[in-house]
């Protein structure tokens, strides 16, 4: 089973990271899921692949009533992001899925009906969660051509999907980045190869540099907090991406 770690809490406004399953098969990439709750409702960010549904569901249920989960947010269309969708919908057929309009007719191949999907326009949108407004922030081409991050301006947390991702070796898989220079070595190859557009990267860096962010939470690897957030943005800004050895 995965473990849960509350990374932000103010009353019933919470960010819970669902991470690190010791029983997970190694051939599946490790992923972080995040649950945001406010009032009595919750939204699950990048709910993960079908194979890890049991681990995510049980971890989430230990922390929050899964019946109060009203929506999932899919940063993009990858299988590690949302191939579990059909299983979440088995549990709650009324659950909605926020995703880029680009993938609105692709993700139903994983599950869901026309009623399930809320297509996000390229410029982004507000996502309500019982009195809290979350913002879908454009991050197109990073790496997917229709890609969003999710910003909570109250908690000052940015969920950054594959941006900030690191493929951590065993023994160096702490939940938070503690030594930026050591950590970023595990992120470099991923960003050079998976991120395809220097222009998109520059625009994203300019956009998020203006946002108040205490924690930058990627879908793989460790969470950047405090000064490491700005450190990461500067590092990413300077990195040449779209690099392939082939």
């Amino acid at each position, binding site marked *: 089973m995965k473990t849960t770690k509350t990374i932000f809490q103010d009353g019933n406004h919470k960010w819970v990271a669902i991470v690190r399953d010791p029983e997970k098969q190694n051939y599946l990439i490790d992923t972080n899921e995040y649950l945001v709750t406010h009032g009595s409702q919750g939204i699950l960010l990048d709910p993960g692949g079908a194979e890890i549904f*049991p681990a995510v569901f049980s971890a989430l249920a230990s922390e929050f009533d899964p019946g109060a989960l009203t929506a999932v947010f899919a940063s993009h269309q990858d299988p590690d992001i949302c191939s579990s969708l059909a299983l979440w919908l*088995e549990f709650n057929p009324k659950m909605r899925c926020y995703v880029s309009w680009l993938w609105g007719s692709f993700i139903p191949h994983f599950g869901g009906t026309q009623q399930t999907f809320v297509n996000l326009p390229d410029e982004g949108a507000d996502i309500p969660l019982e009195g809290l407004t979350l913002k879908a922030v454009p991050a197109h081409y990073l790496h997917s051509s229709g890609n969003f991050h999710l910003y909570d301006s109250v908690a000052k947390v940015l969920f950054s999907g594959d941006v900030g991702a690191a493929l951590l070796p065993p023994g160096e898989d702490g939940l938070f980045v503690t030594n930026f220079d050591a950590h970023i070595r595990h992120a470099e190859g991923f960003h050079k190869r998976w991120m395809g557009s220097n222009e998109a990267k520059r625009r994203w860096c300019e956009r998020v540099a203006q946002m108040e962010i205490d924690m930058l939470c990627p879908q793989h690897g460790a969470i950047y907090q405090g000064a490491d957030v700005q450190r990461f943005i500067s590092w990413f800004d300077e990195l040449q991406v779209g690099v392939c050895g082939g």
Partner: protein
Amino acid sequence: MNPGTALAVSGPAGNTPQAGADLLRIVRINEEIKTVVRVAFKINIMALNAIFLAKRAGTAALGFGVLSNELRIFSQDLRESMDVLTSLIHGCVNDVSLVLQDSRHTRLLRQAVAQSSDQRLNRVLMAKDAENERHVEHLGSLRKQLGRALDDAARLVELGGVLAKSAKIEAAYGQTFAAALTQVSADFDGVVEEIRSSLESLRRSTFFRGN
């Protein structure tokens, strides 16, 4: 469920190996059906040529002409019969795919139930199990329909065999055309035999021994 067969399984969640094997068998059945359709097309052309030949032979080949026409109708009936089989095959592919998908989802839901104490998920699993059972039953009924449609096709081919044999007899009365008509009737006999053996191998498919 049919506990008497080696491939029978105890419940929907355990259907994956059979469903995977079924998919392979269905593909083979479909290939055989395509062969029969090609042969039916061949009979149609052969029968048309035979009708012209009988016309040229005149009164000596009146009987042969009638039989050629019947063989042409037979080829069309055979084509229709294969269309029925093809649409049943498509239904089977659909059901087998559902059973395969059910099986994966049920496995994952079962794991989630084992790891979590949420009783509602158990109810979801039970509903899913019931749905899987319905898919398995529907596949079972299609399997039976396909078997019956194959029996119908086999009876049709028996009739085709009789027509081809009768054409052989009629050819003997063809006077100067007797040799040509005999050759044509032997060809008819050959292709009907080809279809008969195709259908026989279809009816022996282990797909029909599933539940």
